[in-house]
């Protein structure tokens, strides 16, 4: 189990209690996403659409690299890793 930090864009800070970052414990990236959504359930409607697909202009980044298109999130985590909710830059 690794101690990691998750972060959200400013517009979603209320979903995680008013802060931009929070600490979580998870062994893999898949588990980290699961724990994040279980801990902060209000994130779900903003990250996923009615059919459970991640919204078009949002992605998750593990240590700065997008994992949106990865089908296998069984990625081992280490203490200090970062999982960021990122708003994709779309437009000028």
């Amino acid at each position: 189990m690794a101690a990691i930090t998750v972060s959200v864009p400013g517009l979603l800070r209320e979903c995680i209690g008013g802060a931009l970052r929070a600490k979580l414990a998870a062994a893999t990236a898949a588990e980290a996403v699961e724990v994040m959504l279980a801990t902060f359930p209000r994130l779900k409607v903003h990250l996923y659409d009615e059919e459970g697909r991640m919204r078009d202009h949002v992605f998750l980044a593990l240590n700065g690299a997008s994992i949106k298109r990865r089908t296998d999130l069984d990625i081992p985590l280490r203490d200090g890793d970062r999982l960021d909710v990122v708003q994709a830059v779309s437009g000028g």
Partner: protein
Amino acid sequence: MSELLLLVGTEKGAFTARYDESTAQWSTSGPHLPGWEVSALTLAGNGTPRLLAGTTHYVYGATIRSSDDMGRTWDEQPGSPAYDAERGFKMNRIWTIERTASGSLLAGVDEAGIFRSDDDGQTWSELRALTDHPTRVNWSPGNGGLCLHTIVQDPHDANRMWVAISAVGVFRTDDGGASWELKTRGIPPVPTGGDGVGIDRCVHRIALDPGAADTLYMQFHGGVFRSTDAAESWHPIESGLPSNFGFPLVTGRPGELFVAPLESDERRYMPDGRLRVFRSRDAGESWQDVSAGLPGEPQFVNVLRGAMARDPGNVGGVMFGTTMGQVYATHDSGETWQELPMQLPRVLSVTAHRMGA
């Protein structure tokens, strides 16, 4: 004396304005919910005043938020309107939130549908009969989306209401939403690519005459209409207006209504760049330009459909906001106008309320 409270939803947050009648001055607050598109904003609550905001963001979707301290803090409602996945519809925007006489709430949304809450906005349920209407397969979005933007309730019959959907038409229920009938006779179709059989009517706004529950008015995509038979049939009332294209329409006294015509569909700004409001006091038979006090310099702006409201405590009170962020108010049916002391983001919604007694 009750206080006039104006709630203004914009593309980047919500604002409030309170009117001090003794000094004729406005005091403003905001932005509340900064960064969120506030497409609907109203005052509700059973006992305690509660602000309800329909918030949207093109990235993060649409939800309803509430504030019980006049906007200082907000709670996102976990039971916000949402279509069940098997419906196949998306929740793109909350267009309007209306309180019913019994204290329930109704929300009109994009994709077009209507939701009801019986717990002050905490949880919402879809009134499925509307989206199950046999014409639904042919509904298609207009420029503003496939939006149910207007809900009009009959003050004399709690089971009757009308809803308006852009590029589709008007529907009426006489049984509290258990069934709906399309009511577009007399309204011409617009080219949506649909089959034009009954739907394809781009209704921009409807409002009820306060003096006659069977009389409604409509600002259409190309025309202003009146119905005197509860929307069974519609008849044009646009003679005397500089244009029949526009978005907002509000009623004041019985037979009195206000519109803000635009140059045309292609040029969605004020005719000749002059910010003008038109009033009728004979149910649309004739119209007067009531623009004294509005800016004389060029104003190539629009007034969106939800951005004009009437003061519930003064039949002569009308307020509107523009796409360039100015807000104007009249307390004498348009004889004089006052600009509120704030320059806002694009104004999407304006509602007026009375606080206290």
